[in-house]
């Protein structure tokens, strides 16, 4: 199982039947492939849809039905469409149960930085700030360290924030870490063949070890 699959499979276990979920592009989107049996979720796409389905086949593709990446997609039975102001009303108003996003950095206070690197890359925040501010539960799904092997989980984010104090769970290829209300990180689960020491070493903030520390329940 590769890193992406480990993360996606573990994120999928966070979903409960009936949840409305917005998934960021990349690893978060993969999570929808690993839903536990009996769990049905409704995908919200911030460009204006609930009940988003799989990518459209070439012959049904239209620019009037696209996902948040602009790619032709489908809608499932029971879904519906709305404009951007309503879409972000749903997001900001707490009508999205969970959002899963990638991060450049996430910190011990649940702060998230995922939208810009000053002087280097300023793509714009898109819908990320609203999603992280408004969704009931914010889950970060990412590789534990960056390409240079440096920690992405820090005591304090150095990059410009996406939102403050909003992340409550971090799922990586190495571990599941929860963020305590009021701050502080707790190591909850370990990926297959990963030790607590390894996780501590690759994390840029102190980790409390959960008394119930366990392996990620992803192997089935």
């Amino acid at each position, binding site marked *: 199982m590769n890193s992406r699959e480990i993360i996606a499979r573990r994120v999928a276990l966070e979903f409960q039947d009936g949840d409305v979920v917005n998934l960021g592009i990349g690893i978060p989107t993969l999570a929808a492939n690993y839903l536990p049996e009996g769990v049905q979720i409704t995908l919200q796409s911030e*460009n*204006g849809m609930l009940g988003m389905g799989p990518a459209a086949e070439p012959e049904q593709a239209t620019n009037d039905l696209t996902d948040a990446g602009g790619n032709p997609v489908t809608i499932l039975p029971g879904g519906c469409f709305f404009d951007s102001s309503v879409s972000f009303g749903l997001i900001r108003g707490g009508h999205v149960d969970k959002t899963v996003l990638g991060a450049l950095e996430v910190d011990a206070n649940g702060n998230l930085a995922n939208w810009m690197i000053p002087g280097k890359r300023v793509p714009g925040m898109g819908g990320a700030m609203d999603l992280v501010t408004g969704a009931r539960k914010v889950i970060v799904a990412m590789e534990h360290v960056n390409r240079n092997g440096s920690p992405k989980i820090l005591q304090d984010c150095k990059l410009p924030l996406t939102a403050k104090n909003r992340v409550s769970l971090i799922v990586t290829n190495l571990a599941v870490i929860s963020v305590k209300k009021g701050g502080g990180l707790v190591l909850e689960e370990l990926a297959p063949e990963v030790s607590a020491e390894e996780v501590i070493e690759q994390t840029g903030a102190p980790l409390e070890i959960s008394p119930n520390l366990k392996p990620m329940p992803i192997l089935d």
Partner: protein
Amino acid sequence: MKNKVFSAQEAVARVKDGDHVMVGGFLQGGTPDVIVRELIRQGKKNLTVTSNDTGREGCAVYDLVFAGNVDRIIADYIGLNPRTGQMMIENPDSVQLFPQGTLAEKIRAGGFGLGGILTPTGVGTIVEQGKEKITIDGKEYLLELALRADVAMIRAHTADEAGNLIIRGTARNFNVVMAFAADYVIAEVDEIVPVGELDPDQITIPGTLIDAIVKGG
């Protein structure tokens, strides 16, 4: 009844150099490509463009920015248009970014006669720079001001001759709020039908807001 159906050339001729133009759409989804490209063809200059994004290769707004018609951009995402990124490096004031939900509310406020709205989005981030913060029941909000434009260019699937619009699927995006927020509104549509053919329950945008209807590709 006044005629509202025009060619792209006629409808876009009324746009002036220096105008602030709002363009509906979300990347290639639900964009009014024909009338945006007509801005390029007519060589309109010094435009301000408000749009969700500045497109990716192949998008009309992408080409508009590359063609040099645009001096100033208001958007939430510019990551797939290197020319916009370059504008921002050369002159940081030329590109203004807002969170997507904030941008939608700012435009809606402009069209709905509100002065602005209070949003929690952006609190504690660089988005709050220069903005008034208001605390209500212990929670902080940013005051984000209304935004209006001279022109809105929007896309719909069907129009009747009175300008009533039906938009399909995810193409509603920014097209709906922008229809309220500009002095001159052009709708690009696939199909134009006589008045009375559309079910009043299904109309996405009231025809009284629309000044010009252009049949698109």
